[in-house]
């Protein structure tokens, strides 16, 4: 999600206007938690575009709890800012955080356990999504906001032109890549990019990997597990034989390759239409979306790439009010509609995935009217994932080691071992208990 949002941010540059502070004199009701007397003021650090407008909806209905949205930064930068603010006990009441950042925030003692306040919210999300907010404990550290179920995107016109069929398994995917190379040596099915570890994490998740887990009183790191190794060997092999490209994504060269049809497919997530709109504007209406290829025929699983949640901080003086807002924001139909409309997010709440706001396919995929119906089907098959307290270190190791291996086209086995070792070494160095 973050990529789409980063891009949108740059494009829209929405003002951080607080909107009409809707403290109109319409009586006293609305504050459903009576613990706080008088109007409560909450600050919310988020980067989703249009979040201030969604907060306005809330402010109009709840004069007792006023939420102010501040755009401080996005993604990983925001995590750093929040941790710094929390050290000075100046963290905002609410924060937007990507799922993989939650353990980092929790181990820095930034996030409050809101399991007592979120009520029956759990039932409104796919289990694989909800479980990311608990870290596998009894606590609840956030309410899921958006998710990024992964899919396979391909140029329908070029697939027909080269006589290719849409791969349903990864074996077929490899055969398709080779067939294309034979027919058009200057083209590639796709690229293996080392500049966004989220993609690789999602692919590993689909194969059944759980990179971090809590094992009693210890962290267990399983990045170099059989499932991830299968994924790494598969892509390493394709890169080594030259069946797919090895250049990173999100570069001018990558945009051009997508726009001119030099690369004719992209393993991505539900937010891809937004990215393709800016990266490959000339190819509008030529793409199609299909489920991710599977490891065994007939299986039905996908990973997730991106997605974020709303969390309450320990510095908040009004945790109950903040948790109520977080729940409303991510489960109330009106709020979710506004989030989709204003922020262009793909909601994590299952009911909203087939809601009115997503009835129409994205403009870029007008040729696939049932885009969001299929997306909702795919989202249900999202495999669970779990994150640890040093995802940032693992991701940096991925970038450097897989980047070097992709450059050398030498297979990814050693890079994966290196990623595991770097992650474990960092945890131990920090003082975490690590299970062997």
């Amino acid at each position, binding site marked *: 999600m973050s990529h789409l949002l980063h891009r949108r941010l740059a494009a829209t540059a929405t003002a951080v206007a607080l909107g009409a502070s809707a403290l109109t004199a319409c009586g006293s009701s609305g504050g459903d938690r009576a613990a706080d007397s008088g109007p409560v003021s909450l600050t919310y650090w988020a980067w989703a575009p249009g979040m201030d407008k969604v907060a306005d909806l809330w402010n109009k209905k709840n004069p007792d709890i006023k939420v102010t949205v501040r755009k401080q930064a996005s993604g990983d930068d925001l995590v*750093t800012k929040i941790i710094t603010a929390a050290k000075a006990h100046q963290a905002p009441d609410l924060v937007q955080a990507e799922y993989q950042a939650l353990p980092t925030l929790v*181990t820095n*003692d930034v996030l409050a356990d809101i399991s007592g306040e979120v009520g029956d919210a759990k039932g409104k999300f796919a289990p694989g999504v909800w479980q990311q907010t608990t870290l596998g404990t009894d606590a609840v550290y956030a309410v899921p906001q958006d998710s990024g179920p992964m899919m396979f995107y391909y140029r329908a016109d070029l697939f027909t032109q080269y006589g290719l069929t849409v791969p349903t398994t990864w074996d077929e995917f490899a055969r398709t890549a080779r067939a294309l190379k034979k027919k058009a040596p200057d083209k590639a099915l796709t690229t293996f990019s080392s500049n966004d570890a989220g993609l690789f994490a999602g692919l590993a998740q689909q194969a059944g990997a759980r990179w971090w887990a809590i094992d009693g009183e210890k962290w267990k790191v399983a990045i170099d597990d059989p499932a991830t190794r299968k994924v790494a060997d598969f892509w390493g092999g394709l890169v080594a034989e030259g069946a797919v490209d090895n*250049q990173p994504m999100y570069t001018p060269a990558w945009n051009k390759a997508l726009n001119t049809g*030099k690369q004719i497919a992209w393993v991505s997530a539900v937010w891809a239409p937004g990215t393709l709109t800016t990266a490959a504007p000339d190819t509008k209406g030529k793409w199609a979306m299909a489920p991710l290829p599977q490891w065994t025929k007939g299986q039905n699983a996908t990973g997730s790439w991106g997605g974020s949640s709303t969390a309450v901080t320990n510095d908040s003086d009004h945790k109950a009010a903040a948790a109520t807002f977080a729940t409303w924001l991510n489960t109330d139909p009106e709020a979710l509609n506004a989030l989709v409309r204003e922020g262009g997010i793909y909601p994590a709440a299952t009911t909203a995935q087939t809601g009115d706001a997503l009835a129409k396919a994205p403009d870029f995929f007008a040729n696939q009217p049932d885009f969001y119906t299929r997306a909702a089907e795919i989202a249900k098959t999202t495999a669970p994932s779990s994150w640890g307290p*040093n995802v*940032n270190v693992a991701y940096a190791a991925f970038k450097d080691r897989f980047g070097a291996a992709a*450059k050398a086209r030498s297979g990814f086995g050693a890079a994966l071992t290196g990623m595991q070792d770097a992650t474990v070494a960092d945890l131990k160095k920090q*003082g975490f208990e690590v299970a062997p």
Partner: protein
Amino acid sequence: MTTNHRAARRRGTAYGVKAAPYGFLAPAVVLFALFFALPIGYALWLSLRKIEISGLGLGKGARQEVWAGLENYTATLTDAELGHGALRVLGYGAIVVPVMLGLALLFALLLDSERVRARSFSRLAIFLPYAIPGVIAALLWGFLYLPDVSPFHYALDRLGLPGPDLLDGGPLFLSLANIAVWGGTGFNMIVIYTSLRSIPAEVYEAAKLDGASPLQIALRVKIPMVAPSLVLTFFFSVIATLQVFSEPTTLKPLTNGVSTTWSPLMKVYNDAFVNGNIHAASATAVVLAAATFVLSFGLLRLANSRTAQGETR
């Protein structure tokens, strides 16, 4: 009574005169302490501490700042990746500094020669890249280096020639050095040129009367006389090279060839803002500052003793 009074007044004036220098110094000392000594002291303090986590690291009190002694320094000095980064930067500097200063000297001498035309236009044209921010320059060159969008690669492709991968391996050093040379030559040229203009005309006249050719004047008169400004530009260039950060950081997303720890400063940034380990970052920063200090002043001393020798000869 009057004498007493006068004596007291005289004493007061004497006291005032004595205190005056401190009064004048105070603003500078306060500013120095607040914005220089204090931050450095704080960095040193941070570098001697670390975060210790107990158990799973969840909940209150699981994360504590404790005394680390020289642990962070040991880690920094034994870090192989930092060593590789330092070597990469030295290799990069070995290209940048001589090429940039050589070109700057050459351009300055050419501009200073008598028969030059369009002097002020050329001076501006050479200086202009310096006015372009480093990040913009790196982006600009990055686009020119990327095979799929580069006009050079397009032209080579048309001619049927293979285009080199400029963002990888050995050529990557040349590509990065090129950005620095392109951006920095103008500034250094201006420094050297200014010092050339201040050489009195009689010196040239004397040389000409002795029958020296323009080339001989340049080599035997001009270069020795601008040696101090050459030393100065060399000093600046070495420091700038050791601090290289924005160019590789800007090129990083474009290629697999630049890692997140390509230069030592990138490692400091990564430690502080990606890994959230401000203590390790402080230790590395202190080591880097010390190394830069030793290296640049060592080279300066060496250069100064050389020029001093030249003068006595």
